């Protein structure tokens, strides 16, 4: 490649370099850098993902090991950077390990809710008729109920496990996705390319999944980021209320529940996990706000 070409090409259209051969999805990811808000959000989320993946290497102690000697001085020290909790367990290690269940459950539940909600919304918006009515009404029923009470009733009844939490989050979040997708589908089904696909004799499923769904992805992706943030909050809240992931494995909400009664003496025990969960949710929500800005600019 000659330098002459480069010099000539750059001033004419700066983004030309990224448009060269990069795949489309990668260019979409790169577009995030045009929004400071989204960039900060992505950075925060990525930091947590890296910390969670590398937890076995980074964590100075095993998450459930108690250090009885440390109980004399639970506050942050050189041996325990963030101090230990009331049982002498290293808080930094527990926060690192605790990032794992959160970052597994929240996105899985979002994927589940998006898959279920998209199918319901597509079917309701494309087929209309009684199906539309049934789906819309069912969604309204789930959405009108104060979900936290629903979680309490369901999780205390069936017991709390990672899969049960994913299940209730999927079921209670799917109606929101369904409502969004249905609204988008009502608009998209009237487009020419859908009519063209019908003329070609494509199946209903093909039209819904290949023609309509990809064109609804913008608002859907923004909402998935928001949903992930809210799911993380709910996972934390469930842990805090004592109906979340079962102990003793570290769970941020549960860590706060165990130690906030000792706030007057050792506030650090509850403060660090609170800071961890807050920063992760802020990351996802900033990403969502930034993506929405980018979407509005097109």
């Amino acid at each position, binding site marked *: 490649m000659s330098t002459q070409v480069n010099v000539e090409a750059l001033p004419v259209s700066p983004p030309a370099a990224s448009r060269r051969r990069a795949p489309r999805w990668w260019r979409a990811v790169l577009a995030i850098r045009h929004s400071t808000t989204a960039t900060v959000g992505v950075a925060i989320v990525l930091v947590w993902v890296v910390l969670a993946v590398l937890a076995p290497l980074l964590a100075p102690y095993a998450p459930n090991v108690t250090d009885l000697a440390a109980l004399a001085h639970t506050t942050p020290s050189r041996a325990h950077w963030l101090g230990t909790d009331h049982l002498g367990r290293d808080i930094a290690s527990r926060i690192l390990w605790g990032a794992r269940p959160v970052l597994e459950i929240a996105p899985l539940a979002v994927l589940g809710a998006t898959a279920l909600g998209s199918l319901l919304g597509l079917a309701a918006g494309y087929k209309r008729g009684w199906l539309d009515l049934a789906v819309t*009404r069912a969604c309204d029923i789930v959405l009108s109920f104060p979900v936290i*009470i629903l979680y*309490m*009733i369901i999780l205390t009844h069936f017991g709390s496990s990672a899969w049960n939490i994913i299940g209730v989050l999927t079921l209670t979040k799917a109606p929101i996705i369904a409502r969004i997708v249905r609204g988008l589908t009502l608009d998209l089904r009237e487009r020419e390319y859908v009519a063209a696909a019908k003329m070609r004799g494509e199946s209903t499923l093909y039209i819904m999944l290949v023609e309509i769904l990809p064109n609804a992805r913008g608002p859907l992706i923004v909402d998935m980021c928001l949903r992930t943030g809210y799911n993380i*909050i709910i996972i934390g809240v469930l842990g805090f209320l004592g109906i979340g992931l079962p102990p003793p494995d570290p769970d941020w909400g549960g860590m706060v529940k165990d130690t906030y009664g000792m706030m007057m003496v050792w506030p650090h025990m509850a403060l660090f996990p609170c800071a961890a*969960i807050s920063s992760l949710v802020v990351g996802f929500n900033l990403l969502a706000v930034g993506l929405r800005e980018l979407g509005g600019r097109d």
Partner: protein
Amino acid sequence: MARFAVKHLVFLLLTLFVVSFLVFALNEFSPGDVARKELGAYATQDQVEALTKRLGLDRPLLVRYVEYMGKAAVGDLGTSARYKAPVLTVIVKHLANTALLAALAFACIVPLSMVLGIAAGMRESSRLDRAILLFSTVMASIPEFALGVFLVSVFVVWLGWLPGTATLAAGGGWSVGAQLVLPVAVIVLFDAGYVISMIRASMVEVMQRPYIRTAVLKGMPFHRVIFRHAARNAMINPITVILLQINYLVAGVVVVETVFAYPGFGRMMLEAALFKDIALVEAGALVAVGLAVVTNILGDVAYMVLDPRIRA
């Protein structure tokens, strides 16, 4: 309009029945369960079966549900195993406490989020808008328990200005007023973040309408454009959101109530669920759904009052 109202009312009543039936079924589907919970783990199978028979729990689910709803309609909700008192009394007491908390929070959330939402949305992407957007995003991102821990560590542990619990008992030298400050602050900060962003989005949309441009171009002062033309129209969509917050404020503040040991409805439901106090769980769920139905109706009515186009 009458048709609209009737259709909606029917649907909302349907919601009430469907949800309460689901909760009822979840708790009482296997009849042995109720008697087993009543008698405890050490009762023999014979005793469980005898009680099941005596309480009529061996009859079909639907029959028992209709009977339950019939009794509920005249105010007989059974006895709470956890509080050893009639369910109705227990619920009324806790609901009243939560209503106090909710009313105070609501009285702060509405003006705060209207002012900030309208201020942010009137000039999209201005410095003020970006600051308010960032503030509301961050506030809505911090879980209530974390917000509670942050505020407690500053105002209770560090400064010692306020009490860390709000049991409503006048103990520990703190007045009830002082006890309520932190719980209300947590709810307001968390919830206002969401409401602000809704009002802002609506305001941004209204500001792009042709009638706003006309008002600006004909030389109307900006503040009059905002107050006369934009603000009212910008509040039409968020008003339903705002009214639905009542729903959240009464049934959803379980976390704040737990943080501050506040004797409210949410914490009562949590304890009832953990204690397997079936009568209280069922009645509480009924109250929560009923409340959701009422706030939905309120939302629709407010929407019609503000937007004359729907009345046709």
